């Protein structure tokens, strides 16, 4: 479904991604982790073309993201993305946040969009808040809305960039629960996160990055049980021992 081949990217002289290769098959959940500044966000933003790459190719369902002539707008409408800071449209109610893309991008009717919005918002237990504005919701609630907004577009895959790291601890689980459910429903997911409990539970593979390179890309059990590289070992010991 998603294939990343020999991708390199530079910001000026600084190389953010160094020859990265990985893939996410249909229905698979891949967790991306690694120290701060290792290029995780950059990699995931390249998958839907939010960031261009200078070398290598990325393909999503047969569409080459990195090709010049690709209609990125169309491609992005089929890939959901969830951000660390939610990024809900602040001037729109929860309902409008979920309907905008459905109506303006997919061309659905208002009724159709509303029905879909209500069903999705109900699934994350937010129906009572559907007319509220993002600024009136807690972080956990906002992130659940953001996930619903992405799902409203019927995406073929979902990208998550540290969806819980801006949340207060007591709100992390309400968001992770939604993501676990999504994974169990068979959604193809690429998730940047340091929630190793989540990774253990639903990830098929774990990709470990350091300094722009993919250092390990292994089955979840193998990664946690027996990381090959010293850097992954060190990272895991730090993150699991607090």
């Amino acid at each position, binding site marked *: 479904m998603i294939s990343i081949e020999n991708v390199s990217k530079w910001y000026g002289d600084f190389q953010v991604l160094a020859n990265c290769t990985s893939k996410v098959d249909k229905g698979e959940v891949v967790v991306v982790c690694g120290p701060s500044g290792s290029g995780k966000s950059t990699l995931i*933003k390249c998958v*839907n073309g*939010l960031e261009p790459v200078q070398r290598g190719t990325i393909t999503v369902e047969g569409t080459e993201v990195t090709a010049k002539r690709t209609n990125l*707008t*169309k491609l*992005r*409408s*089929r*890939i*959901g*993305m969830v*951000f660390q*800071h939610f*990024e*809900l*449209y*602040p*001037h729109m109610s929860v309902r409008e946040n979920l309907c*905008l*893309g459905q109506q*303006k*991008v*997919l061309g659905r009717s208002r009724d159709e969009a509303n029905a879909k919005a209500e069903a999705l918002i109900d699934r994350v237990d937010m129906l009572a808040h559907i007319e*509220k*504005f*993002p*600024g*009136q*919701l807690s972080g956990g609630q906002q992130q659940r809305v953001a996930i619903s*907004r*992405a799902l409203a*577009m019927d995406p073929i895959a979902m*990208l998550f960039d540290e969806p819980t790291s801006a949340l207060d601890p007591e709100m992390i689980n309400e968001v992770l629960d939604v993501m676990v459910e999504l994974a169990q429903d068979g959604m193809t997911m690429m998730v940047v996160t340091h929630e190793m409990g989540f990774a253990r539970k639903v990830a098929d593979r774990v990709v470990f990055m350091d300094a722009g390179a993919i250092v390990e890309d292994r089955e979840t059990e193998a990664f946690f049980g027996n990381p090959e590289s010293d850097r992954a070992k060190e990272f895991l010991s730090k993150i699991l021992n607090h």
Partner: protein
Amino acid sequence: MNYNWNWGVLFEEQYLDWLISGVGWTFAVALSAWVIALIVGIMIGVGRTLPTKPIAHICAAYVELFRNVPLLVQLFLWYFVMPEVVSDDLGRWMKRDMPNPEFVTAVIGLGLYTASRVAEQVRAGINAVGGGLVSAAYAGGLSTAQTYRFVLLPIAFRLIVPPLTSEFLTIFKNSSLALTIGLLELTAQSQQIAEYTFQGFEAYTAATVIYVVIALGATLISHILEKHTRIPGYVGKG
């Protein structure tokens, strides 16, 4: 001081007519120029934030040019110089047949000048929205035009209501410069009343009071607008 106060002069039919006509022209110039300033200013302001570099540069050049040449000089250029540098036919038409040349020139000059200031506010508003939201809009499949239309501009406009009000007030005050090219707006009429009646204090006081009333009205409208467009719980980019 030996000054014969006579407020009654303001209510003599002839002078009252002048004042009213002056107010009318002031409103006509300011409001028409404001329409130009908004349309052009929004286009230039948006243009400066576009990823297309040539467009952004052209818009930046516009702002620098119109913002930095004094408004009075711009009015003179439009009024006295423009007809000489365009083609002969057009120049002749501008000098002889163009209806209401003082008014048209004042509206264009004031409008294009204020546009450069509106453009700066629009640009600042767009930049204040923040890159995360833009990424989210693109990630959601919105095109660049849709991102501006549905996300960037609605938020940006709410953020810039107060500075735009101040530009709106300025356009009323700046419209008084139109008297230098012969438009009989409020200030010019007051001046004329002063000359005819020797009651300068009264005439200019009347003008002052009217400008202040306009300012209060605009501020009131701005407050109402701000209240109605406030985004619940939103404080802008942190």
